């Protein structure tokens, strides 16, 4: 579920926009969704995932590395993504993550949830 809070504060995803010096605290699970979505296209390593999120969000979302790797390992543990060692674009050994079938299903589920949530929040913002 998207709207459950983890009691362990450290696993809360926080994205810090260093330029604007504003701090966007994302709900737990949002980072998971972003990672799954990023991997939907092609396998990437951890750094590329964070770069990709930052790039697509036009630097609004900067993924805290302290949250990225635990999240990757947790997703792998849940069987939604899998990892294998490959060679990066610069010729270094890197760990590439890709979506599993279960991960695809999970991405679909979470995308729906996300759409419903944002729609609901949007309605409240407009109509309340």
């Amino acid at each position, binding site marked *: 579920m998207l709207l459950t809070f983890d009691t362990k504060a450290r696993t809360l995803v926080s994205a810090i926009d260093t330029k604007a010096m504003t701090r966007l605290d994302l709900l737990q699970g949002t980072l998971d969704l972003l990672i799954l979505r990023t991997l939907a296209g092609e396998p990437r390593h951890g750094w590329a995932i964070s770069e990709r999120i930052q790039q697509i969000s036009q630097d609004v979302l900067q993924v805290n*590395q302290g949250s990225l790797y635990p999240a990757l390992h947790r997703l*792998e*543990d849940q069987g939604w993504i899998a990892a294998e060692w490959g060679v*990066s674009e610069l010729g270094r050994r890197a760990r590439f993550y890709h979506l599993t079938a279960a991960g695809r299903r999970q991405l679909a589920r979470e995308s729906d949830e996300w759409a419903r949530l944002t729609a609901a929040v949007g309605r409240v913002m407009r109509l309340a």
Partner: protein
Amino acid sequence: MRWRSVARRVRAILRPGNAERALADELDFHLAMQTEKHRAAGMDAADADLRARLEFGNVGLVKEDARDARGTQFVDDTMRDLRYAVRAIARTPVFALTVVGTISLAVGLNAAAFTVFDAYVLRPLDVRDPSSLYALAWLDRSGRVRSFDWSDYVTLRRASPGYTAIAAVRTIAVRLRGSNAVGDAVSSNYFELLGVVPAIGSTLAGRDDQSPVDAPDVVLGHALWQSRFGGDSGVVGQHVLLRGHPFRVVGVARAGFEGLYKKPRDFWIPLGALSLLDDSIRSTPATLDGLSLIGRLAPGESPSKAGSAASATMRALTAPRPAADRADRVILTSRARAITPSIGAYAAFAPIAIAFGLVLLLACANVANMMLARGLARQRELGVRLALGATRARLVRQLVVESLLLALPAIGLGFAAAWLIVTFGVRTLFATLPHDLVAFVRLVPLHPDARVLAYTAAVALASALIFGLAPSLQSTRLSVVEATRGEFGRLGSPAKLRTSLIIAQVAIASLLMTAASVLLRQSARLSGVETGIRTRDVISVESGLDRRSDVLRRLNVNPVVGLLAAAATPVLDANLPTLALSRGGSSTDVSVAYNRVSSGFFGLLGIPIVAGRAFQASDEVGGETAIVSEAAARRIWPAGNAIGQTISLRVRGERGTADSLDGVRVAHVVGVARDVITPGGASDASIIYLPTSPRAAACCLFVRARGDVAVAQRTIAADLDRFVPGAVDRLDRLDTFVAGAIYPYRAAYWVALVLGGLALALSVAGVHGVIAYIVAQRTREIGVRIALGATARDVLIAVLSQTTRHALIGVGAGAVLALGLARALASAVQQMPGFDPVAALAAIVIVLAACIAAVASPTRRATRIDPNVALRYE
């Protein structure tokens, strides 16, 4: 959890380094990429690196979170617990050594007892597929267990489809190479049925049961081959003399096979050869009886089905016989083990198991007490950890790991202790046995093996966990606030637990000490008991009838032989048979034990004739005379003179026995003999003596030795072996039997004494430790009391009264337990007194004295507390 993640976790647990390295590589790569990115944006290398690291944050923290996310944290924590436990144990090495030592010793003792129990009751016989082996026996209509004769065997073997094979066995005792040996005469299929191969040579396989031959075969037992033939492989083809007949050694059974019975066998001969050795068996095996049958059930066959088939066969077979000899049913008993597991077998081991188990319990109580004290001492540490956020589960896990760490060395040490105790016990047994008994005592091999190790491990782990953890759990049940303030005083239950442990320890110690002192008095009483028979210089000589006259001739000319007499049943050694007796003119039968003795019997064994006369030579052949013991006279003629009375006798011998008393006979009582003790301690000393001759069948000779009896025994044995080789089956000193009757009590006494002493030592240590601990805990309180005017005497009384109260409760409980146990034992073991108040009182005094001694030094310390020092304490 998906199997892939399971597999990864297993990998992570087995090789934590790999996962750890992979994680480090991954994070390194990220940093490198980030640095590269900053460099590409125009930073110099050092700045780019610094920036990347700053952005990344705490690498260690990230790693830890990643590990957490992977679920391998458990392994890490356990390793940490282990390290912590090792440190905690290393900090208090004396405590750890005491706990490990206590558990090891107690577990070792129990494992030793288990080794014996396992060897006799649990371990299957060392033969092929022992679980399908069954012993057959048939019951007649009065429910008596009967043995089979040759025709029964042949018919059953032919007509029983439920069995793969049936073998017949009859046990025989002879002298072999100058000492006593027990063997089995067996049917030709015996070894094949059991799947026993020879160590060297061959077995009896395929040799005909029917025809007695001139030099029949013998297979030697492995132990006998080792001890009396020095393991010489040249023994095959040699001849050994059994009762004077040469037997050709064809082979040696493999090591580990010692027959199917509790007492290991020394040799095996074909059934057909029995007629050479036994007077009562005529030349054809068809007259053989007294056979035990061993059958191997066909696969898928149930014992009850096979049993009812055999019952039908036996009923049909015995239908033509007299009513008393007709079969009712055949019963099958598993022969998978040396002792058939039964209520009786377990009951026989129960007192031993209880005694050893109690010592273990005592040791565990000590460990629990130590753990409790340690738990209390560690409460500040635990409190601090609770305050720092450790959960109670986490602390309990820590304590479990510590307990397990203490249990592991205890397993190894306990196993080693078991091995030592068994070895030492067997050595001691043979060293302390009366010399002549050694030849009769054979033990099944006692080696602590994997089963014993498993038992040791289970017991050690259970005792360390239960008795290490229970007190620990209690010490984690405290609140953070109290613990950090150092207030533990309000924890009531550890004190209660401690008190009950002390009481239990004292109770167990006094129970075991009572057992030891009862057994001591019992063996002392037995060694002082008058048998009524002159045993000290008498030697019994058993030999077959066919060579009896030669034996008698040699004995008569031997200068060490003083007097010579004979009896049908060896005195002291065997239980006397009984006969039905009716007084002249009366039709009611009474059952009385009887023996047939020669004219010199009473004189030689020093049994006084209190009225009438002894047997004379004229009685020996067909004399219709009888002598009764005093007890028998009182019983049969309660108010009257036995002399001159007439009695009719009916012997209830089994079919085919060689006793010529078959049928009804009349005898006149000519004398009354003084009572003697009867074998097995039967309370009734009634015996009817009937006359017999030293030349009669089934007779045991008695010789009174001149000079030293040991020398005389050797002289007679050498003389007989030289001139009538093999004629003598047994040659024993009578005092051996007396010693043999006392020895079990003496051995039981020593075992009980060792256990009791150990229990006492453990209790003393436990009581001492607890009182010392309580005094240390109450130092401040006692200091305040002294400061307020309490004298040393008040303190002394306060400490002692508490201890004494606990000790008295414990001793009382122990006495009650001992009383109950004595009742149970008295009904199970012959000659055990129901309750021995002197022994119980002695035990109680010893235990109480030990308790007082145990608290002496802590009490003294309590009285010397200096209030100034005590109040500054902490």
